[in-house]
């Protein structure tokens, strides 16, 4: 059974729908990547999963139940994590406090998880008491991801994790994502850097106009001349 499955999802902000019947399914071992032109509905898909906008049609199955239109703070204890594209850290709070906030829903001792995050991002261990607002863009992205990992999600949603980062950080972030996936967390991410992201995607979804256009493994999509011409050009 898939970890998460979107079936014919129709969703929007209240007016005309942005998603017009989207199908996506990934397993725990997958790194799923959603690519497509601007306005295709990539970020909207993630937000629809996380209850941040109105789903008016279709179902989103996670852990055996339809989680469409749930409240975001109910989804975190169920094993979902979300890293937004912008404003994804608490700038006035320290690195360690950001991580603590990620563990808010946990009632048990989460020091082990915090250790795990610090091992994944050694730089953060050094700067654990610094206010996050003072860190660089790449370091902030690390804090953002670390925060989402603190609740030990089974599925991690990432909205354009490489946006605005220098090339060196982009590689680092992607490598970390692969590592997180290897440690047992399913990944579903939206990316503008289509070629780079699809390179290690086990499942790729090309969206346009709020609908699926192409689906396959990352390698298949890169190799497909039609996909490459229309969507991976730049």
């Amino acid at each position, binding site marked *: 059974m898939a970890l998460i499955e979107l079936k014919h999802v129709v969703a929007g902000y209240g007016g005309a729908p942005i998603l017009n019947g989207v199908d996506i399914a990934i397993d725990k071992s997958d790194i799923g990547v959603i690519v497509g032109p601007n306005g295709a509905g990539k970020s909207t898909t993630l937000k629809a999963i*996380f209850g*941040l906008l109105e789903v008016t049609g279709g179902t989103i199955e996670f852990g055996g139940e339809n989680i469409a239109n749930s*409240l*975001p*703070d109910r*989804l*975190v*204890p169920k094993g979902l994590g*979300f890293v*937004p594209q912008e*404003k*994804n*850290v*608490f*700038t*006035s*709070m320290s690195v360690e*406090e950001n991580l*603590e*906030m*990620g563990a*808010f*829903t946990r009632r048990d001792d989460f020091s082990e998880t915090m250790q795990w995050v610090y091992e994944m991002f050694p730089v953060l261990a050094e700067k654990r008491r610094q206010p996050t607002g003072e860190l660089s863009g790449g370091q902030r992205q690390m804090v953002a991801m670390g*925060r*989402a990992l603190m*609740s030990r999600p089974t599925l991690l949603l990432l909205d354009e994790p490489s946006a605005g980062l220098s090339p060196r950080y982009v590689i680092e972030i992607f490598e970390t994502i692969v590592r997180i996936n290897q440690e047992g967390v399913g990944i579903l991410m939206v990316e503008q850097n289509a070629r780079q992201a699809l390179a290690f995607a086990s499942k790729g979804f090309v969206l346009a106009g709020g609908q699926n256009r192409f689906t396959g493994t990352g390698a298949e999509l890169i190799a497909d001349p039609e996909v490459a011409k229309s969507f991976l050009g730049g």
Partner: protein
Amino acid sequence: MDELIFFINRVLISGTVLGSIYALGAIGVTLIFGILRFAHFAHGDMMTMGAFVAFLLASVLAAMGIILPLPMAFVVLPLAMAITAFLALGIDKAFYAPLRRQGAKPVTLLIASIGVTLMIQGLVRLLFGSGTRPLFVAGEAKDIFRIDMSWAGGSRPISITEPQVLMFVVTAILVLALHFFLTRSRLGKAMRAMADNADLAQVSGINTALVVRVTWVIAGALACVAGTMLALDVALMPDLAFNIVLPIFAAAIVGGLGHTYGAIVGGFLIAFAETLAVFNWTAILRPLNAVLPEGWSLPANLALVPTEYKLTVAFVILVITLLVRPTGIFKGAST
């Protein structure tokens, strides 16, 4: 030495008392602004409400024959705080939460809070009458401590009243408790997180409804203390806190909306600005008379601003801050 004593009595002590009151009120305003994103104009009346609750409780206890060495209003304070916090939650549930659910803009909520102000004011006056009365029950009186300063060459004592001493102690305790709550406890940090970035807080799994409730509880409890202290220091009247709303907003804005420590600093700043502005500096500068040449002397009253304009000082500071540096000292929210 006498001049210094005069200064201490008139400025230091009364400024600190006023500052404590402003600070406690401003903390509530700034918390509500940081987490609920609107200007809670009814906060002054929440303070009045708290003071009247304390008065009711104290009167009831006195009627039952229970008298203690401390002013009764202080004794009932914990219970009064709890009741006021409960009322604050009720007001939010009845008047603000429905509008928030409808997606109301901050200004709509401001107007709603004006509606709440009117209702509380009207209700309080309806129930208690418009008159002024002291907050002491059953024949209590203000104990005044006089510290003799003759050993330092002063001919008058430093005088401080019992309520004022209690005020300092209570304020210090509350501020400390709040500090620990916000920096050490899970819920307190969640509040800071929500004030920082409400969307991210929700996405992180923070129970935003719970944080909102805790905010009202804290704001209500602190408002009760501030209102009761003000009533003890001055007198209990329905108009009590309406005059205070603007200085409290001034304090919160000057300190940076959303910043708790800023609110405290702002509160004392405004209080001392008011006190110093109406202070008659001639009283201190009198020794200078001896140094001035023949025929010259200091004017009888060298106050920066006449006493009638004391509250106006806070308004002027408010307007200037909004125009010049709306983010305040600690760079809170602005446009």
